[in-house]
């Protein structure tokens, strides 16, 4: 038990990667009707579900530890922090880990209902995706963030094309190319930051960026802008959000539901880099991107909800709602206050669960509507209008922010937090009107799906509504209801998490050196060799 406890922070990364390797070794089911292949698929399902469940337990344990402890640093191979690879679990990181597992478990259960047989190696790729997500949430290093971004992206490229088809391949190509271009920008931003500070460790960066002045600070800020483009692209921030609806709508339902957490990786990275490193105490670089992030975030919300109103299929509507919810979370991030960040975390957790649930629900509904599928037009009556209708109502009310569901609590916290801000009017107007328009959009979709019944068509079949599929969807929506019931403890946790996030000193003390709270490094080189180890300077003289 002690051994597991000591290595707890690395387990969220190790567990899915080992599971994925074992799944690869088990092999693919190959062909849906082969009896031998079917047994392999069954084993793959059991193993994957067990692994994700253990992952959920680990994440819950980490959250419990983070709730009453400080920042926990894990040094891989015991290399000291700014030089080696450091994993850091603080309250925000632990919360994101838990959220990932909470989304992954029902989604995987849903996928086991049949989608995983539509392509090859679904379960292995799914585990690699989880490894990338978890890694991005625990890493304490900007370059490792890039590496884990790539891991989760490569897995997502394959999941995106899962199930094949011309549309998925075409949209998948767009998705891959855009992400590769963003990765190039990520590398440029990271290396610029390295050139100016001589470190990529987030704790160390938070100490060194405030020391930069003049031209150096300007260059570091331009790196921050580049990184904002990259993270904004992942999170679907305003001018970079148009890829998302097409991609998510083309992906199969469980994959789209899992992707609901992927936009949050971008939000999380913005939080870490622009919220903390370039945040309040960053000296000359303080609030480097605030002036642009807030208007763009507000615009993202509005664009998202307008897209949802104009959508002609249910999947596209949900995809646009993802954009709107990301906008709302980014508004909270860009308000730069503890209360707003706490609200943002609460709202992010809720909106991720709701959006994932809606993606699954959209497919359940579509499966019972015959040829119309998820197009918003009159079609045959559903086989289970009451069950699916209640689920839809629940999800819609939470997405729009109606009391007593958690969407309401999150938005209320956000409105309160913005009350002294200069942009208060804009924030209130946007958040409230986005909530209202979300409700209008979902009400329109709901009334078409459930009430505009064409009598000339035969009633829908029970296709695609096995207890497994419905149960997985219910589980996700039940999680959002639970967020409402346990609102007080969760709110306390997010408030603590926001406070912890702002305390860059404590983070640095935990990650770097426990005594000094300050790393020793010879970098960055200035060109005139004075800083490097003894001997180097005289050698430079000798070379001249």
């Amino acid at each position, binding site marked *: 038990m002690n051994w597991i406890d000591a290595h707890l922070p690395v387990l969220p990364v190790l567990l899915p990667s080992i599971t994925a390797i074992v799944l690869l070794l088990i092999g693919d089911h190959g062909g849906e009707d082969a009896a031998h292949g079917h047994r392999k698929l069954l084993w793959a399902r059991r193993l994957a579900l067990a692994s994700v469940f253990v992952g959920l337990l680990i994440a819950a344990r980490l959250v419990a530890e983070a709730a009453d402890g400080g920042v926990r640093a894990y040094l891989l191979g015991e290399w000291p922090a700014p030089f080696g690879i450091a994993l850091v679990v603080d309250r925000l990181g632990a919360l994101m880990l838990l959220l990932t597992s909470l989304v992954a478990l029902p989604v995987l259960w849903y996928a086991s209902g049949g989608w995983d047989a539509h392509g090859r190696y679904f379960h292995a790729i799914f585990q690699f995706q989880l490894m990338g997500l978890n890694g991005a949430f625990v890493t304490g290093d900007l*370059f490792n963030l890039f590496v884990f971004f790539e891991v989760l992206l490569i897995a997502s490229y394959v999941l995106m094309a899962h199930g094949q088809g011309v549309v998925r391949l075409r949209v998948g190509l767009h998705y891959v190319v855009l992400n590769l271009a963003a990765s190039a920008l990520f590398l440029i931003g990271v290396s610029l930051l390295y050139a100016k500070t001589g470190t990529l460790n987030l704790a160390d960066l938070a100490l060194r960026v405030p020391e930069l002045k003049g031209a150096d600070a300007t260059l570091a800020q331009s790196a921050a802008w580049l990184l904002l483009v990259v993270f904004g692209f992942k999170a679907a921030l305003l001018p970079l959000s148009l890829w998302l609806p097409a991609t998510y709508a083309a992906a199969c339902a469980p994959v789209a539901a899992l992707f609901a957490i992927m936009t949050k990786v971008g939000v999380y990275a913005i939080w870490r880099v622009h919220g903390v490193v370039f945040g309040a105490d960053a000296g000359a670089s303080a609030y480097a991107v605030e002036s642009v992030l807030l208007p763009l975030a507000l615009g993202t919300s509005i664009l998202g909800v307008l897209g949802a109103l104009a959508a002609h299929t249910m999947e596209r509507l949900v995809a646009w709602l993802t954009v709107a919810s990301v906008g709302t979370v980014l508004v909270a991030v860009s308000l730069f206050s503890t209360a707003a960040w706490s609200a943002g975390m609460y709202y992010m957790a809720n909106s991720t669960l709701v959006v994932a649930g809606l993606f699954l629900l959209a497919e359940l509904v579509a499966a019972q509507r015959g040829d119309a599928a998820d197009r918003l037009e009159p079609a045959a009556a559903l086989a289970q209008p009451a069950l699916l209708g209640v689920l839809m109502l629940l999800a819609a009310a939470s997405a729009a922010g109606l009391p007593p569901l958690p969407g309401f609590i999150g938005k209320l916290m956000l409105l309160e937090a913005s009350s002294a801000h200069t942009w208060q009017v804009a924030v209130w107007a946007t958040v409230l009107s986005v909530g209202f328009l979300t409700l209008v959009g979902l009400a329109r979709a709901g009334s078409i799906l459930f009430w505009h019944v064409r009598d000339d068509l035969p009633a829908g079949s029970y296709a695609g509504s096995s207890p497994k599929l419905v149960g997985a969807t219910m589980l996700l929506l039940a999680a959002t209801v639970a967020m409402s019931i346990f609102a007080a403890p969760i709110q306390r946790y997010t408030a603590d998490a926001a406070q912890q996030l702002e305390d860059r000193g404590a983070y640095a003390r935990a990650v770097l050196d426990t005594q000094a709270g300050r790393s020793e490094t010879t970098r960055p080189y200035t060109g005139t*060799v004075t800083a490097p180890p003894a001997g180097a300077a005289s050698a430079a003289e000798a070379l001249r």
Partner: protein
Amino acid sequence: MSIEFLVASGIGWVVAVGVYLMLRGRSFAVVLGLSLVGYAVNVFIFSMGRLWSAAPPILGAKELLADPLPQALVLTAIVIGFATTGFVIELALRGHHDGGNDHVDGRDEAGAQDAGAR
């Protein structure tokens, strides 16, 4: 002309070519553009450790030191870039097979115009 100027303008030129290619309508050109941008970015990372000549990246040597970290980073970036390029080529080939043409939007007539213009 300093070596820094040469390297910087070289990176700029390769990125410009890469961006031009990425904006083309054929997935083959797009892949080439991505690779070129990837190369330029790799050189950029490398040069962010400053440009040194005749300096080994080994601590403790009685000489001038080059910064070893960007060299390690660039190795990682090269490996990842190689893997993703391989994947995107496979994806483009698959799209070409299933869709019948290698236009990025899958539209044949637009592709035909593009080819005719050449």
